[in-house]
């Protein structure tokens, strides 16, 4: 990289201020490394720094690395420069992405979609490195939270951090699946047998080489989340999990159902956090009611299955199975889903309870149709999902 083209030697105060801002932005979880600091000095050297608008735009494009950053940069910029002199109050939390401690301390607000106001997923992943590995070879610091029952969380802060972990876990699952496949892979090599066969046309000269290549594909996940009243303890947590899945798995989709089915995949993918929260609040009106699994699945089959499901699809239903509908109808719908997909998984949060036996008529009728009936009462059980997804 060549040195600054217009070397004007900006004054010392400005250098100090810019350095201060770089540190400030870093403390606000912006990706500001040495390169960015150096580039910001080069930027300042070549623009009219008294023009605050130019400085703002320049630093914005330099320091942001996601939509979330883009949306909150102006607040951070104003907070620093409007004070005129550099402050190194790195604890201050500004904009949507607060440092972790304060995010956890904030009271949890139900119903208005506030649970989606989360620190950026990238930052979460970075923290994950120090937080242990969710039960896969990590330190034991998070062990207790991995095996903690979702319905035994005592306060809002715990619940919130659990939701964060669930979303992060979803991303991890994909990474681990890919790693597994990468080890399996023997490389892209010439397939001698097929090459010899193809060479017959050319009198035995191997003109056309055939290659053997393992197609590496991850399953297409389709989540169907029960958000009825009996599931209300878990709904937000699974929604966060779904958001993680949608962010990590290509072609994944998500639906929520109570008495009717709502397509939430598009909304949860909404890159702007603020916009997503608004939409989610709109959609979630009327949740926490009764459950009609059969009706919801029928709606799924009728309107979405054709587009959403394919040979690589894994359908994951998250529900406690308390349903007021007819078991025959449910089975009929499950059979239709099964025909169109690779695997049908039913996650039941109640299964974690030792005293629980699947006894409702619905579950009993559906059991023979379900490929995997697994608990989903803590992070460990969610993490086990990975095994069921491998090899598809």
């Amino acid at each position, binding site marked *: 990289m060549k040195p600054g083209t217009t070397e004007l030697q900006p004054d010392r105060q400005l250098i100090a201020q810019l350095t201060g801002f770089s540190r400030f932005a870093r403390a606000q979880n912006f990706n500001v490394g040495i390169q960015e600091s150096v580039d910001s000095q080069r930027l300042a050297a070549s623009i009219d720094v008294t023009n605050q608008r130019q400085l703002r735009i320049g630093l914005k494009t330099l320091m942001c690395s996601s939509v979330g950053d883009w949306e909150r940069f102006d607040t951070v910029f104003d907070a620093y420069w409007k004070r005129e002199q550099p402050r190194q109050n790195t604890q201050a939390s500004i904009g949507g992405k607060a440092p972790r401690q304060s995010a956890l301390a904030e009271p949890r607000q139900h119903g208005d979609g506030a649970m989606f106001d989360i620190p950026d997923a990238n930052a979460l992943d970075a923290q994950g490195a120090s937080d242990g590995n969710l039960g896969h070879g990590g330190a034991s610091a998070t062990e207790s939270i991995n095996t903690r029952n979702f319905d035994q969380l005592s306060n809002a802060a715990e619940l919130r951090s659990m939701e964060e972990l669930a979303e992060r876990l979803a991303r991890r699952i994909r990474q681990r699946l890919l790693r597994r496949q990468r080890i399996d892979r023997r490389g892209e090599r010439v397939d001698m047998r097929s090459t010899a066969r193809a060479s017959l046309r050319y009198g035995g000269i191997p003109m056309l080489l055939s290659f053997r290549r393992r197609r590496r594909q991850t399953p297409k996940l389709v989540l169907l989340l029960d958000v009825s009243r009996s599931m209300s303890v878990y709904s937000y947590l699974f929604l966060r999990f779904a958001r993680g899945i949608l962010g990590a798995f290509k072609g994944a989709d998500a639906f929520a159902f109570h008495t009717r089915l709502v397509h939430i995949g598009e909304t949860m993918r909404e*890159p702007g956090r603020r916009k997503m929260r608004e939409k989610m609040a709109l959609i979630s009106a009327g949740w926490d009611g009764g459950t009609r699994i059969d009706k919801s699945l029928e709606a799924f089959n009728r309107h979405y299955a054709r587009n959403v499901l394919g040979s690589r699809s894994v359908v994951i239903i998250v529900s406690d199975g308390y349903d007021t509908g007819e078991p025959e109808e449910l089975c009929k719908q499950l059979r239709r889903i099964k025909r169109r997909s690779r695997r049908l998984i039913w996650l039941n949060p109640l299964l974690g309870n030792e005293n629980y036996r699947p006894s409702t008529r619905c579950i009993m009728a559906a059991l023979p149709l379900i490929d995997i009936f697994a608990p989903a009462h803590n992070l460990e059980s969610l993490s086990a999902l990975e095994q069921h997804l491998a090899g598809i």
Partner: protein
Amino acid sequence: MKAALDKMRQRVTDAGYIADQALLTSLWLMSELNRPLLLEGNAGVGKTEVGKILADVFDRSLIRLQCYEGLDVNTAVYEWNYQRQLLAIRRQEILHEEGLSEAQLFSETYLMKRPLLQSISEEQPTVLLIDEIDRADEEFEAYLLEVLSDFQISIPELGTIKASSIPLVILTSNGTRELSDALRRRCLYHYIDYPDYDKELRIVLARAPGIGANLAAQIVAFVQNLRQQDLRKVPGVAETLDWTAALLRLDMKSLGDNPDAVVATLGCLLKTREDIDAMPAEVIHGLVAKAS
């Protein structure tokens, strides 16, 4: 810098693209710092267009790499021309010639350059547009990272090929998948949002020169209102321009003249059945009335 920016704005405008100050600054900055620019934004806001314009503005050739699931090194970087190699060997055998060494066999003669390699081996710097990077696999993303930081590509049989010129790199993403932190870090970033009324009006006027000011204003007002509706696929600028072209073909002078034609041409703006179902004729007529 002001002069440079003004010059840039002039050239971008001449090329028929309406860019705001922020985007111009980003573009100027990427050429100044020689760093790739990651453009994010919804479909149809003109991300890909930026790459094309940039090539125009700097008078460079544009090399485009369209990413997709399963994109690999052979399609993106280089491949050996096996057939040609085999023919060369065969020819040598038949003619009993000497001297086709292995080094010759794996020389540039038999190398097929794909976009990435091509963009760094041109004599004149190029503009490299890596479109929809989020569709490519993580592995490719990691590989790309290596190319973008060192601007060199290593080919096992040939050794390392250093860039003879550094291209301007634009990456676009629709956000179907989270990109890696490393790649984001490597790039400058710009988020392109749907244009506001004034900007979109300028775009329509620039792209559809024959259009009456009245109709253009109505079209833009209509689309701006439509974006506020709860739609699955929000129409982008590309859709606005398509629709404008359609209305011009129908010789419309004003939306209010023929609201039914608006309903009939709605397929230019709304691309899913759900959205069309969600916008019955009455709603459309209401929007038309609001726009005129």
